């Protein structure tokens, strides 16, 4: 009976927290990208409620009765922490010798977001990850995970972080299962059921009892992710997770990460130098180069960064088309408008950058001049272009 009452009390705390949390996400909304984000945030809230109750159950079974007051206070405090971003970096720097490997990097990752960390090789991606998880000591700045400092409160901060840093290295002379048992032992409250659950999630059921030395790179990658998921992390950090996976595996992983982010509200931090991958997977992307953060932007914004889109008119009479374009551009220029760049010949027509209305105008001109248009399409400005623009065209990959 006592147990039941306590559960109820804790549940109230949780719902209070959910309300606050909901407010929190709506104010953050403009940083997100529209509708389905909000949906996700709601799903996120629900799952936190259930998590909270589960936790309350566990705790109430463990604790003697008179501690229930303190316990719910503690829970309230924790839930307050859980409102804010999972990961906060403030002015983080790492100096080795005279070189600044990571230079004054700051950003935040909220719950339920897939955050991409993009940069050419040697830009400081992995070093930043090592600083976040405390494998390296930072020279300056601080890292907060769930509000706990990785420097001064390591155990609490790291408790809810699952990570694979660089390659997913496991003990090769043990089986996949034994490896998971090894890591599960170090986190309180993780039993055999959870191990079996994560094994199923990463689809290693059939080979989990084989020695890791017999695994392919892709299987090791999955085992690494299974290891990271064991502790039901609030923050999942994956360093180049698609390395060694075949296209099907990459897709599977992408779907899987989405699922974790949406249903469990886990923040996912993914580093990569593969731009296309990031474009498909992430909500926001941070671009790092030579240890400095160049930009943190929603992926869509990054893709759309040039505002106007490049348009291709499919024509066969290219010379006439160019003539019309020139006339049109001159007219525009006389009205004080300057277009970003002129027209270019492409394989099947001409390409130029136009605003929406201008596309229709120019199409009319072509029709009047008797230039036959077989198609109008946007030529895609990819993340790669934005990336090259931001990093000043440094070689990627």
């Amino acid at each position, binding site marked *: 009976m006592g147990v039941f009452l306590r559960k109820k009390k804790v549940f109230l705390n949780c719902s209070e927290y959910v309300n606050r949390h909901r407010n929190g996400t709506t104010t953050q909304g403009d940083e997100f990208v529209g509708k389905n984000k909000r949906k996700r945030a709601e799903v996120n809230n629900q799952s936190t409620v259930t998590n909270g109750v589960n936790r309350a159950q566990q705790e109430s079974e463990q604790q003697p009765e008179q501690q229930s007051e303190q316990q719910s206070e503690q829970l309230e405090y924790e839930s307050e922490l859980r409102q804010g971003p999972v990961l906060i970096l403030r002015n983080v720097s790492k100096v080795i010798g005279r070189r600044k490997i990571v230079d004054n990097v700051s950003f935040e990752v909220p719950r339920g977001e897939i955050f991409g960390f993009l940069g050419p090789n040697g830009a400081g991606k992995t070093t930043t990850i090592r600083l976040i998880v405390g494998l390296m000591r930072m020279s300056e700045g601080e890292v907060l995970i769930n509000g706990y400092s990785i420097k001064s409160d390591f155990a609490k901060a790291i408790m809810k972080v699952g990570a694979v840093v*660089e390659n997913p290295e496991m003990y090769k002379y043990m089986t996949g299962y034994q490896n998971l048992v090894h890591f599960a032992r170090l986190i309180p409250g993780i039993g055999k059921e959870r191990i079996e659950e994560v094994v199923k999630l990463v689809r290693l059921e059939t080979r989990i009892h084989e020695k890791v030395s017999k695994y392919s790179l892709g299987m090791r990658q999955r085992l690494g992710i299974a290891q990271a998921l064991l502790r039901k992390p609030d923050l999942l950090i994956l360093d180049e997770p698609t390395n060694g996976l075949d296209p099907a595996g990459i897709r599977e992983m992408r779907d899987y990460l989405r699922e974790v982010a949406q249903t469990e509200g886990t923040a996912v931090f993914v580093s990569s130098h593969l731009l296309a991958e990031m474009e498909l997977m992430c909500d926001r992307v941070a671009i790092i180069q030579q240890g400095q953060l160049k930009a943190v932007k929603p992926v869509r914004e990054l893709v759309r960064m040039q505002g106007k889109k490049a348009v291709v008119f499919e024509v066969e009479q290219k010379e006439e088309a160019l003539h019309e374009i020139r006339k049109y551009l001159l007219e525009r220029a006389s009205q004080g408008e300057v277009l970003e760049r002129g027209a270019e010949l492409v394989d099947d027509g001409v390409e130029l950058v136009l605003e929406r209305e201008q596309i229709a105008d120019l199409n009319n001109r072509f029709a009047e001049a008797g230039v036959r248009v077989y198609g109008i399409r946007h030529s895609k400005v990819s993340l790669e272009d934005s990336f090259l623009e931001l990093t000043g065209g440094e070689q990627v990959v």
Partner: protein
Amino acid sequence: MFNLLLNENMKIYRRWRTWIMSAILILLMAFSFVITYGFVGIDEATDWRAQSEERVMQLKSSLAEATNPNSEQMMDAESLKVMQNELKLEQHRLEKDIAPTNYTLWGEVLRMSAFVSLVIIFVVIIAADSVASEFSAGTIKLLLLQPASRSKILLAKYLSVFLFALFMVLLVMATALIGGSIVHGIGGLGDTYLSLTASGEFIERNMLLHTLITYGLQCVSLVFVATIAFLISTVFRSSVMAISIAIVIQFLAPVATIFVLQYDWAKFILFVHMDLTQYLNGTPLIKGIDMPFAVSVLAAYFIVLNGITWLLFNRRDVA
């Protein structure tokens, strides 16, 4: 902490090499028994009293000759003392009816304590690999991502090395006991050990206790060689280097000891004190050094070596 220790043990005993090492140890010991008794059989051990009485006669006559001023044989005071002591011991032995250890069950176990130096090599391999292999395989990153503090992880590793050492030493004792009881039967289990110190006092104790003390004293150098291997393993993150340096130290220590004995500062050198039996028998390598001093030197080395390991492991950036 207990789980950390379980993990470290899993890493040691889930590997083939651990069991291969145990098998090598048992096989070599069995081989040593076969060499000793397989072809010759035992007949010397039948009547120790007769042998002992004979020896007493021998000693008496040579002592009489040596103390006779007319004799041509001259003997220095030291050898005289040794002979007198032996005579005293043999007489005491006959009086109290305590058999000598040579050809008894416990005698075998004592003889086999020599295999502890092989155990040291195996323990060095495990100790050297404990930290270094985590670095070379890259698993250290995942290990340090656990909520356990680095100090606890290191402590678990250190303890697991000594649990392994304990396992190996017990394996030596058990094998020796089994081999010994096959050769001599188990009649001698309750035997008593008798010896005489340099200062002329009799030591009489239970053989089991005496065996444990003998093995324990052997383990002093085991602890230090393993600690050094552990340190090098942590500093250089290379198990090959740690193994080779530790084994070189293990074999060069006696030579180095002889070399440094001529200097004043020799009493502060670790190797000089690693064999503690010298203080028990009252025959220290350096005159005037006693057990408490030796133990303090050893303790100081123990703290410094482990302190360095701990400091480095805790402060290091893992790349």
